[in-house]
């Protein structure tokens, strides 16, 4: 087990160095889009609105934290790994090393998790400062946001392993990530939609992430089923990635 974690660290080391080189860039770009969402939807559209008896801004901040776990983790991993696989070919070097496939998958997803956590933590900290009477930093919130970052990092690994070109990632973004961004409970409760749409949206991981992150930070009844489903997504994406590398389909 110790050997596995050591291998994982070795795999992620190169990406940690890259993060070190680009720290300022990461910090600035991490908060840009969530802050825009917060300004546009929280203050612009949502001023004076209430959802389930809460000010809209308190409702939307956990949703934006969940959304940020998606956008930061996914885009960082998929972008960088895609470049490493198709353009630098440095993923080849990794695959020729005596490192287990599971460690490669986990190591490659870890830096996305870190990036996702940095971005969502900044947004959540802003939220805590704005509506301290409604938002709470709880252990369950930490578990939910970390799990969420893992799910979307591992999805980023999957999409870049399957990508035939950089354009494939852009297409995946437009067809999967963008609809999730607007529909999966970040800006409004999914339960207000007709049952058929609810069923469709509950098949996507961001819906469960939004529901779980919101409940854990607003101290609502916690949806354990959503957290369990997030774990299942994690396991599924991890298994797919291991399969793709082991069968040398990358």
């Amino acid at each position, binding site marked *: 087990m110790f050997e596995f974690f050591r291998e994982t660290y*070795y795999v992620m080391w190169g990406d940690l*160095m890259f993060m070190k080189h680009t720290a300022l860039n990461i910090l600035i770009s991490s908060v840009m889009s969530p802050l825009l969402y917060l300004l546009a939807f929280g203050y612009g559209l949502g001023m004076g609105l209430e959802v389930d008896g809460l000010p809209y801004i308190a409702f939307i901040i956990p949703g934006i934290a969940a959304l940020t776990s998606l956008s930061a983790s996914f885009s960082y991993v998929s972008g960088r790994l895609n470049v490493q696989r198709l353009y*630098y070919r*440095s993923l080849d*070097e990794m695959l*020729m090393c*005596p*490192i287990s496939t599971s460690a490669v998958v986990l190591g490659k997803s870890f830096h996305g998790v870190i990036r996702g956590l940095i971005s969502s933590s900044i947004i959540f900290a802003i939220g805590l400062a704005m509506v301290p009477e409604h938002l709470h930093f709880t252990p369950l919130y930490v578990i939910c946001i970390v799990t969420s970052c893992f799910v979307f990092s591992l999805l980023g690994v999957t999409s870049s392993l399957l990508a035939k070109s950089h354009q494939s990632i852009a297409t995946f973004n437009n067809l999967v990530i963008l609809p999730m961004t607007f529909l999966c409970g970040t800006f409004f409760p999914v339960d207000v939609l007709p049952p058929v749409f609810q069923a469709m949206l509950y098949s996507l991981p961001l819906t469960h992430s939004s529901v779980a992150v919101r409940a854990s930070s607003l101290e609502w009844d916690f949806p354990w089923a959503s957290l369990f489903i997030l774990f299942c997504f994690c396991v599924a994406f991890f298994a797919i990635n291991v399969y793709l590398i082991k069968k040398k389909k990358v």
Partner: protein
Amino acid sequence: MVLLEDIIVVKGLVKKFGKEVAVDGLDLTVKKGEIFGFLGPNGAGKTTAVRVISGLTSFSEGEVSVGGYDILKNPKEAKRLMGVVQQHISLDKDLTVRENMMHRAMTHKMPAGERKERIDELAGYIGLEEYLDRTIDSLSGGWKKRAAIVSSLLHRPTVLFLDEPTVGLDIQARRLIWSLIRKLNGEGTTVFLTSHYIEEVEALCDMVGIIHKGKLIAKGSPADLCRRIGSIAAEYLDPDRMMRYRYFSSKEDAEGFASSLGGGHKVLIRDTTLEDCFVELVGEKLGGE
């Protein structure tokens, strides 16, 4: 020291990309301590074979083992013995040379205490010291290649795969790489080299395999291969001013042939080269020229 143990064994290797067969029933053995040259025209299957043997690409049929470890059943053990320099530069271009080398040392599980010293030693040997803290992207092609080669040597591999290692390098860099290959081989490293440069293979290799359309069509020492077609070449212009080549087992036979052509022909009699052998066996020049 001559060691005759088979360190790379490939049996009946088939690699298909869809319906296209890239490697077609390749059988090959490389002995420990050899420098093995793998020659073939463009698209012959050299790079695919290297990628399969080094465990990077799956294969359709056959068996591959390195150092006695089956690449499918014991990939970690086999990969631990290998160093691979790919044809393209496959370093992380956002990182510095030192970071790339450190990362490689880590993923090949070199002990932490040895990494820095080994990086400095290899960088010093190949003249990379002043470039160690520059990003790969900021280096010229030749320096990138040197960085790629020394990165693959960090963990002291038993078998080193070099896929076109000197393409794009100037003559100085090429000679430096050649002497590095000889030095490594002298220390016991088996080298598996693919190259477009026949003179490189002639200068370095103990054994040569010629691959054509995915099949190994000849294997032997450069001298053996030359003897196979005739170790003396007669080179002459035919009446249509086309260069012709004939091969003979002795100089006397070649001179006899030259006399039989009559006084109007200028015939150059010389030793057969590996290039003659390659063209004769493959039926085309390297690089499809």
